[in-house]
């Protein structure tokens, strides 16, 4: 797995053509809401339990 493959998968999921360019100052003011964090943690837990089959 390479960083470029992660980027490709991420862009497909978000329906984007290229990586967005975001200013560091804008992100500095951004607060991750609790429900977003909770969803992330739930998916993390889930991904440790459920495996998908590869080849």
């Amino acid at each position, binding site marked *: *797995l390479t*960083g470029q493959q*992660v*980027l490709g*998968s*991420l862009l497909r*999921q*978000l329906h984007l053509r290229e*990586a*967005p*360019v*975001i*200013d*560091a100052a*804008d*992100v500095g003011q*951004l607060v*991750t*809401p609790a429900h*977003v*964090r909770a*969803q*992330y943690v739930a*998916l*993390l837990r889930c*991904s*440790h339990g*459920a*495996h*998908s*089959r*590869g*080849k």
Partner: protein
Amino acid sequence: RFSQNFREVTGRLLVSEASTYLLVFSMEQRLPPNSELMQAELRLFQEPIPEVELHRLSASSAPARVTIEWLQVREDGSNSTSLVDSRLVSIHESGWKTFDVTEAVNFWQQLSRPRQPLLLQVSVQREHLGPLASGAHRLVRFSSQEQGGAAHGEPQLELHTLDLRDYGAQGNCDPEVPMGEATRCCRRELYIDLQGMKWAENWVLEPPGFLAYECVGTCQQLPEPLSFKWPFLGPRQCVASEMTALPMIVSVREGGRLRTRVVSLPNMRVQTCSCTSDGALIPRRMKP
């Protein structure tokens, strides 16, 4: 039939005739632990047609279709069947007929313990329908256990397995041992550092990086007689057999405002590495 958007189409039952056999195989402890099922073959002995009937048949009698289904009896008493193999057999020829029932055994392995015996339903049907079709398929008979012993052709189930202690992967790689040409297939740590990647700057918020793992090393190849038996199988290779998704928190612009979003990228982390042949059957997941 309850929808107003569709006209009801009535079907007509043309034919419903099949001779059916139910085969029951006690499977517990038949498959060695830590082994991979390569193939399961059902062998049925087709009995010769009685002389009297043979004279009545034309030489070009249509073949009969033999279908093998795996029968699952659920806890609530209901049952379901899954088609595993189907082939034509000549009505004139007698002898051993072989069917591939690997999928049935794979399904059986997914049952929760204690597992019921392996139930295989064999049905013989006429191949062609219509006024000219003959009922010759009824003459196809397979020997049963009651007729006594393997010598008389009782049904047989052949299980071909590989010992994974020799042919499988070894789990996680030992970080202390350097990789060499002879290193057996294993899962090696591979850290993807997202913080260090220019494209991820300022919008990939979580995680800063993750352990993706990779499958490295070699696998023991099948001995010559087996690769001759299964010529459709490619060489055994060390591949990722189970993967997990990677959740991420990203910041995206929506309507001119920055928002945080969770996405889940499929098949990003290797969970298990296995030795497998290109062309090998991928076990179908049994429906709940």
